[in-house]
C-alpha cells in the first residue's frame, strides 16, 4: 500500500498526515446522504477522538473494516451512532473508505497520564498474557508490534484507551459479539475491570512503532 502512496491535494486542503497518503474519497470528507462523512468523527487522518469514544481507523485492514460496516448494517454489531450511518453507506462508500483508512499510518500516540505501574501491568498482559488463566497475550494475535494481522486482526497499538475499554467490556458483557469464533469474548471475560483498563492504557501509549519485545 505504502509504495503507491503519494502526497496529494484535496481541494485547497493540504493533507499532511504522519506519512503520505492517497486523497480521501468523498465518503470520508463529504459523506453520502445520511452517511455522515467519516472524517467528521474519525478524522481525515483516521485518528478518531479519545474523549468522544471514536476509534482510530488508520491502518485498519480493509477486510476487517468492511466486516464491521457489514455487521453494523446487519445488526450483529450495534452502535447508536454507527448503525444508521452504516445502513446508509453504499458498497462503493464502504470500499472507498476501507481502502483509504487502510492506507494511513497509525497516528503517534498521545502522551499518557496513566500510572507507570498500570502501564507495566498492561504491558505484561499485552506481551505475556495470563496463560495460567488461558488468556493469550494481545500480541499473539494482533502481531508482535500490535499493528494487526490482515485480514481478521485489527491494529490495537495506538487505539484510544476509552474505546479499547468499551469494546473489551462489550465482549465481556455480550454487548458486542461479532468477534470470529468468540475469540475476544474468551479473552475479555477472563479479565478484571482493572486489567482491561491497564491493557487499554498501555495500548494507547504505543503507536506506529509498536512494541517489540
Amino acid at each position, binding site marked *: 500500500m505504502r509504495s503507491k502512496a503519494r502526497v496529494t491535494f484535496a481541494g485547497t486542503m493540504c493533507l499532511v498526515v504522519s506519512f503520505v497518503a492517497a486523497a480521501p474519497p468523498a465518503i470520508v470528507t463529504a459523506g453520502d446522504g445520511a452517511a455522515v462523512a467519516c472524517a467528521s468523527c474519525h478524522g481525515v487522518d483516521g485518528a478518531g477522538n479519545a474523549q468522544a469514544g471514536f476509534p482510530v481507523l488508520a491502518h485498519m485492514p480493509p477486510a476487517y473494516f468492511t466486516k464491521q460496516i457489514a455487521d453494523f448494517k446487519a445488526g450483529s454489531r450495534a452502535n447508536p451512532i454507527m448503525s444508521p450511518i452504516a445502513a446508509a453507506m453504499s458498497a462503493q462508500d464502504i470500499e472507498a473508505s476501507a481502502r483509504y483508512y487502510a492506507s494511513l499510518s497509525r497516528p503517534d500516540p498521545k502522551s499518557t497520564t496513566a500510572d507507570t505501574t498500570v502501564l507495566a501491568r498492561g504491558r505484561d498482559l499485552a506481551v*505475556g*498474557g495470563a*496463560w495460567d488463566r*488461558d*488468556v*493469550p497475550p494481545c500480541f*499473539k*494475535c494482533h*502481531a*508482535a*508490534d500490535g*499493528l*494487526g*494481522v*490482515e485480514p*481478521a*486482526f485489527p491494529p490495537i497499538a495506538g487505539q484510544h484507551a476509552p474505546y479499547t475499554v468499551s469494546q473489551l467490556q462489550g465482549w465481556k458483557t455480550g454487548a458486542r459479539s461479532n468477534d*470470529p*469464533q*468468540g*475469540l475476544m469474548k*474468551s*479473552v475479555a471475560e*477472563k479479565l478484571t475491570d482493572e486489567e482491561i483498563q491497564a491493557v487499554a492504557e498501555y495500548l494507547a501509549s504505543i503507536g506506529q512503532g509498536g512494541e517489540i*519485545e
Partner: protein
Amino acid sequence: MKGAAGSWLCVLALGGVISACNDFPPPETAEGTPAETSPVVAAPAGFTFTPPADSDIPANEIGAAILLGKNIFVNTQQYAKDFVGNALNCANCHLDGGRKADSAPLWAAYGLYPAFRQKSGQVDTIQTRIQGCFLYSMDGTAPAVDSAAMTALVAYNHWLATGAPTGVILPGQGYPELAQPGFVPDMARGKEIYANNCALCHGANGEGIKARGEYAFPPLWGEDSFNWGAGMHRINTAAGFIQANMPYGLGGTLSEQEAWDVALFINSHERPQDPRFQGNLAQTRDAYHDEYCLYGRTPRELRAIVTEQGGGT
C-alpha cells in the same frame, strides 16, 4: 499387525520425553510416561509446579545466558536463524515461552533427562534432546552441544525448572494423551473443523499468515513447517496439543474427537522430508514411523490399521 505395529504408538515429544512404546491402545497416562525405560515416578496427587517469573531472571552472567535462551526460544527466527530451516519458533508448540502446562513445558522436561529414547536409540541428555528439536521440529541443523545457543537454551530450561524435582513426571508435562476416539479420525470432518476453527489464523491452506514480512501465525504444513520427523507429525501428539491449547484462549473447547479429526487433516499434508530418509520411503517408514502417522501411508491405509487396532469405528 501385532508385533511391530503393536508398539507403534511411541511418544516422543520434548517434555513428552522418552519412548513409551506401549502396546496399542496406550495406557491412559500422561504422554511421555517413560514406562520401563527410565527410573521416573509420578508426582504426588495435587502437586503443582510454578516456574519462576521472568522478572526473577538475575542480572548477572547466568541471567544473561537465561535471557538469551528465552529470546532464542521465543524468537528462534531472529536469535538462532542459522539453525532453523523453516518458519517456526520453539514457542509455537511450547506456549508461553515453554511455561504452559499441557504444552510440553520446559520445566517438566528438564528433570526427566538424561533418559534413553527409542527415537534416538541412545541415552539423550537435555542437549541432545534439544538437538532433536532443531533437526525435526525446526527442520534445521542442530547447534553443537557446547555452542552458545545450546548453552543459553539449557540455561533457560534449567532456570524454568528451578525447584522442580528430577525424575518426576510433573502434572502438565508433555502434551495430554487423549483416549482413542470413538470414531476413526476422518479427513472430511477434519477439513471442516479446520476451516471453522483454525484457518482464521493459520490460513485456508495451512500456510500461516504474515504481517509486515514476519510470520504472525505459523504454517502448519508445507515447506516452512515442521518436517516428517517431528513429534507433531504424529496424529495422537498433534491431537493432544490441539485439544488442550487451540485456538488461543479456547483450549479445551474442541472435543477430543474433533481434535483427532483435525489433527489427521493437518498431518495429511506435505511437509519437509524426514531427515532420516535415504531414498526409500517404505524403508524410512518401516524403520522410523511405526507410529500413528501418515508417513508413507495413505489415509485409507492408516484407517485400516487404526480400525484393526481398536482406534475407533
